[in-house]
């Protein structure tokens, strides 16, 4: 990354080009024509990947209307602006550490965050890096030159009276996200970096507003989609897919409930075959469930207006969770004039190709690729889903620090081992035991080395599967640092390998102890042998192999 060295004086004037350029970017509604416009020579230059992308977009644009039983004859169009908090250690323009929700109010505030006179912003390069990572994950075009603007409004949780954002020249444009279901492709318009605000809460009892600036100045990524979703379910799918992607690249932890991911949703309806209707924006939705309800009831409201011969006024609306309805916040005419101005303190952000390439090369594997890779290892779809589900719930580290998830754990343990055996031990035994103990994967105390050693012991027959599970439980309860091979010895769990003499002894003892059952088996009812097998297993404390025991018993009871 390079900042515009020494060109500070012309910041204003240089930005003019971009300011003028605010109309020169028209997000491509003309994608359907794209293929026709491309000459064969140009087509030959386009990689298969981008052709695929064009194809996907093409499919999208000519997507046929799917009749929705909730509103037959109507088409719903949804676009979403997601504000995702950047998971950086420090804020976007100050060195103050970002705050957790449980920290005391105003404990993470520097003079800059409180807009003290004389303070100046200083761009946190980690936030830029995570923004670029996100843009690359969305297949967006990272802009070699972007710039910061001030958006002005007076509010108690905005100490400087303006928010620093990227109105005219965002850090990335274009790209898109393929949703899991129905091959839906949602195009991304742009990604911009901006500051989060503080929080204000009205205390009705003493008629005061309480202001907490812990969040003020935290980095946000505003990710703006094109209006490419056609149902509340697709909107939900988009947000969830985006959430997983952000978590995967480590740029945001995307917790809607905790406010680190918030959505503004644009909704319009039109009669099937007609051009799009007037849109309303629903602000500040903070759960996927409420977002779906809000879209649904907003669709019903707009259809009702249109069907009664009225029109939908363009406005900004809020959502009342208790009454499950949207309500008008302000009309288009009341829209505030934000008086955008290029920030005279921040030189344009110039990113050189080398910097972008380095981030691209160091990108963590994206969810689609992970899934494909795991399936290619011959893991079952179910095991893959379980691993990835657990993985997406992992703690997102600060400043893009990766690792620590279930997939990474699997990858490490599976190195040089049978992937299917490893995934079995992880998804069935380890996750099963953790769930039984009401612990999450994050709390797993078993190291990669311990897990690998345990699987090796079982795979080589040094211990039986049953003993393996015993050791696993032992490791979980005692948080033991010992290797399973040592534990197997301590716990006398090494499988017996004495040419069957011990086995024979245990079997004879079991037969003597259970004469009735032995008798029944002798008469030909083989099923009852399982009870005697159980006795032997208990006596051997799992060291005997159940199959061998069964065979030996059947031989002895012939």
């Amino acid at each position, binding site marked *: 990354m390079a900042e515009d060295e020494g*060109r500070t004086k012309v910041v204003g004037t240089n930005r003019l080009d971009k300011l003028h350029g605010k109309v020169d970017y028209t997000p491509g509604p003309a994608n359907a024509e794209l293929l026709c416009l491309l000459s064969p020579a140009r087509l030959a230059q386009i990689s298969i990947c981008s052709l695929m992308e064009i194809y996907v977009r093409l499919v999208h644009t000519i997507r046929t209307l799917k009749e929705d039983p909730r509103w037959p004859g109507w088409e719903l169009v949804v676009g979403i602006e997601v504000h995702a908090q950047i998971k950086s250690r420090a804020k976007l323009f100050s060195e103050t550490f970002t705050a957790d929700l449980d920290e005391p109010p105003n404990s993470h505030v520097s003079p800059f965050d409180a807009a003290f*006179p004389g303070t100046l912003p200083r761009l946190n390069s980690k936030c830029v890096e995570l923004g670029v990572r996100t843009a690359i994950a969305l297949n967006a075009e990272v802009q070699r030159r972007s710039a910061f603007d001030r958006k002005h409004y007076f509010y108690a949780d905005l*100490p400087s009276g303006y928010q620093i954002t990227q109105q005219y020249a965002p850090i990335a444009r274009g790209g898109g996200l393929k949703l899991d279901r129905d091959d839906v492709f949602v195009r991304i318009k742009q990604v911009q970096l901006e500051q989060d605000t503080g929080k204000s809460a009205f205390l009705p009892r003493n008629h005061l507003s309480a202001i907490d600036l812990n969040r003020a100045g935290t980095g946000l990524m505003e990710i703006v989609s094109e209006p490419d979703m056609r149902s509340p379910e697709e909107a939900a799918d988009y947000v969830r897919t985006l959430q997983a992607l952000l978590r995967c690249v480590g740029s945001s932890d995307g917790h809607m409930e905790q406010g680190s991911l918030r959505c503004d949703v644009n909704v319009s309806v039109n009669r099937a075959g007609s051009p799009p209707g007037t849109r309303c924006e629903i602000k500040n939705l903070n759960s996927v469930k409420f977002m779906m309800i809000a879209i649904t009831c907003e669709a019903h409201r707009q259809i009702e207006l249109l069907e009664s011969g009225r029109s939908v006024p363009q406005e900004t609306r809020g959502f009342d969770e208790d009454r499950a309805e949207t309500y008008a916040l302000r009309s288009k005419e009341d829209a505030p004039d934000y008086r955008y101005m290029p920030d005279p303190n921040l030189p344009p952000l110039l990113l050189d190709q080398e910097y972008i390439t380095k981030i691209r090369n160091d990108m963590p594997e994206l969810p689609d690729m992970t899934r494909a890779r795991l399936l290619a290892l011959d893991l079952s779809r179910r095991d893959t889903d379980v691993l990835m589900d657990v993985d997406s719930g992992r703690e997102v580290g600060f400043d893009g620090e990766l690792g620590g998830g279930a997939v990474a754990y699997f990858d490490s343990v599976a190195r040089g081992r049978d992937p299917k055996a490893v995934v079995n031990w992880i998804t069935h035994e380890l996750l099963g035991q953790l769930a039984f103990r009401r612990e999450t994967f994050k709390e797993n105390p078993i190291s990669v080395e311990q897990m690998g050693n345990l699987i090796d012991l079982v795979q080589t027959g040094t211990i039986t599967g049953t003993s393996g599970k015993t050791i696993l439980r032992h490791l979980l309860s005692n948080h033991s640092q010992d290797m399973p091979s040592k534990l197997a010895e301590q716990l006398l769990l090494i499988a017996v390998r004495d040419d069957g003499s011990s086995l024979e002894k245990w079997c004879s003892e079991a037969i003597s102890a259970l004469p009735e059952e032995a008798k029944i088996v002798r008469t030909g009812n083989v099923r009852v042998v399982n009870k005697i097998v159980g006795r032997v297993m208990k006596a051997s404390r799992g060291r005997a192999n159940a199959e061998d025991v069964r065979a030996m018993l059947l031989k002895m009871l012939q």
Partner: protein
Amino acid sequence: MNPGPCQYYSTQTTRLEQQNATLNALVYLDSNPPASVHTRSLLNDLKLAVKDNICTRSMPTTCSSMMLREFQPPFDATVVKLLRDGGASIIGKTNCDEFGMGSLNVHSVHGPVVNPYIPPFSRGKPFCQEQRSAGGSSGGSAAAVAAHMCDESALGTDTGGSVRLPASYCGIVGFKPSYGLISRWGVVSYADSLDCVGILTRKIRDVMRVFELASVYDPKDPTAARPATRTRAFEACKSYLPQFTSTLTGLRIGVPQEYFPAELQPSALSPIRTVLEALKSRGASIIPVSLPSTPYALSAYYVISSAEASSNLARYDGVEYGLRIDLAPDADKTKTANVYAHTRTRGFGKEVQKRILLGTYALSADAFENYFLQAQRVRKLIRADFDRVFCVPNVLTTASTSAVDGVHVLLHPSAIRTAPPLPNDKDSHQEATPDGLDDYVQDVLNVPASLAAFPWVWRQKDEWPMGVSVVGQWGCDEMVLKVGEIIESLQE
């Protein structure tokens, strides 16, 4: 309502107090400045006065505004820290126009500054001296230096002439370095893209002492010139400056024709004539040049500076710090802006309010294109004008090529007139100037170089002082100071 000239008297500083009672240059006096421990430092024991819009941890920083009347910053500005570390002690804070907005230092909650200059014709007759303006907005700094209240130097800030104009009016040296050389961290923003810390002294060599310590790259200022850029500029400047011996042969001095506007007082011409003749007689070439965009500079300056001011001053809302005026019990509290309006109406003076309104309008959706963007275009043209006439290339623009027969520096009058008289009624300082634009016209000669951000120096002559300005390419601060020294020596 009006406070005394200096609210914070010190018992140790009687002489200063007495002087200050007349001049109103200092608004805070440090009663016991810490003894310097830097026995061998560059600024050993230098007593420095600092403009009241530069943050000081141990003293209030009011910006001459009711809004920050009680404000004491939690940190020192980088430039203050650098000079303190270099051995200087800060004797106090100087009066200025509110947030730096003004040309006569009359828009101050502390009252106007009186020009300490005593013209030869009235020397020895103190009682018949009329009271003249010290210029603004760094009027307190200029007056303190001119009246020997601080050792040699004071810090000011210059957005559109706020160091150069008061220096001219008070008859001292005012130096506005290239934008980005002295850190702005801790300098209260008026218009970020124009604000510069400036140095006011009586001798150019004193400028050099302070500038050397203060001109350091500061990572806390995102607009600071990077070390590599400084080096490039330094080398470019060095390679173009002729080696002078006894003559000035090879020194090319440009005289921009647009800098002699109709508003210029005829008497203002004699100092620059004298200087030019002297330079010529020692071998320098005097070359008429044209900076054709100059006539648009003043309007562009007021649009840009007001727009930035309206943005920068949005933070004074009475919530986190500063003045807070509680609402009347029956007031409409439904909108945050209504709540803030009470504080902002009382806290800001008329001039500041006027510029906030101007700037807010310039940034509004309807006016943005015609005012703000248009002004930015003009700014670009002005910059190109300067790049065309200098022989030294501009290191900030990669494509810049210098003029083959370009000039080293430009020379022009610093002001259109000598210091104007102060309005008689001191108590109505907020309304001291008529609502017209007279005040703004004072800046007409200083603004273009602000928009292009070049260094500047003053020289005096005449009965009431009248400056001569030396302007150089960005980063050629050494060259400008060198030429300034030559002019200084001509006078002696």
